[in-house]
């Protein structure tokens, strides 16, 4: 019994040491992995835009990223999902934005603000209005201390 216990202790100590260690290889690999990710493109679909010079295409991931960046500025909502709908010519026909709203909050006011911000981004990016912007309030969340302005210095 004593031997069994000491083997448990030994293996636990060894596992703890292994967990606490960081391989030198990882330190070297970290930067390379981050650089590799910068040039890795995600699957996306083209969305047609228009300008005075003619038509162009924007990757759906770019439009979604711009929407996220814009709506991230608001502390009263979080974007959960963005679905883009396009026709056979890649023209944007609609956007479905699933959001979570900070509780307590005025749902209709926040949803309308999200719709307006979405319309603005689409207009700026594609040069045209989205025909339909559907807002789905899929969740509510409470604000973190940081969002509320935690007065504790860090």
């Amino acid at each position, binding site marked *: 019994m004593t031997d069994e216990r000491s083997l448990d202790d030994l293996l636990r100590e*060894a*596992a703890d040491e*292994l967990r606490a260690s960081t391989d030198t*290889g*990882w330190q070297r690999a970290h930067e*390379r*992995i981050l650089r590799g*990710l910068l040039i890795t493109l*995600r699957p996306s679909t083209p969305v047609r835009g228009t300008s005075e010079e003619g038509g162009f295409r924007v990757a759906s991931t770019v439009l979604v990223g711009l929407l*996220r960046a814009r709506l991230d500025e608001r502390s009263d909502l979080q974007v959960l999902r963005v679905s883009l709908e396009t026709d056979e010519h890649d023209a944007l026909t609609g956007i479905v934005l699933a959001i979570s709203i900070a509780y307590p909050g005025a749902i209709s006011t926040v949803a309308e603000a999200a719709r307006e911000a979405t319309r603005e981004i689409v207009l700026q990016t594609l040069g045209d209005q989205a025909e339909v912007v559907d807002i789905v309030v899929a969740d509510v969340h409470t604000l973190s201390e940081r969002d509320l302005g935690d007065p504790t210095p860090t």
Partner: protein
Amino acid sequence: MGAGSSDAELVRRVRLGDRAAFEVLVTRYGPGLYRFGRRMVSDDALTEDCVQETFITAWSGIEGFRQESSLKTWLFGIMANKVRRELRRLSTHTSIPMEELEIADNARTEQRAELTGLLQALDAALARLTPDQRACWILREVEHLSYEQIAEIQHTTPGGVRGRLARARQNLGRDLEGWR
């Protein structure tokens, strides 16, 4: 958003294309994935490739993560698949059955110089386990994953994991006898 953000919050942001959020996940889970891979394939370059491919797969395929398992389990599952592919390739090229594939001691020279005595001994003992035993022991004892999570990663059953862990523990105990 930063190092203290929850996995769920980071995944939400990654799904919307936030690379900064993904970098936090790389920093959070990269060391563990590397530690696991390094002890499975015994080669820095191969390990780095496996970890990089794991994160590229995760970045490209985050929509496929249904959150039925934890993010950690999902990432280790991807990594374990990459590792198994490399072990199969190594086994084929060296004509050594995968179950008997052991890690050459001299492959660890650089690493050993920086490890404590016990860690060196553990590394050598782990290298003598079969890949399945080694994977199960690391995932359980070092990464603290449950039997169910390990079974998902290793494509087996919780009972299978329990058996491999018992054999791993027995073999490690024999090899580390001098440290008791």
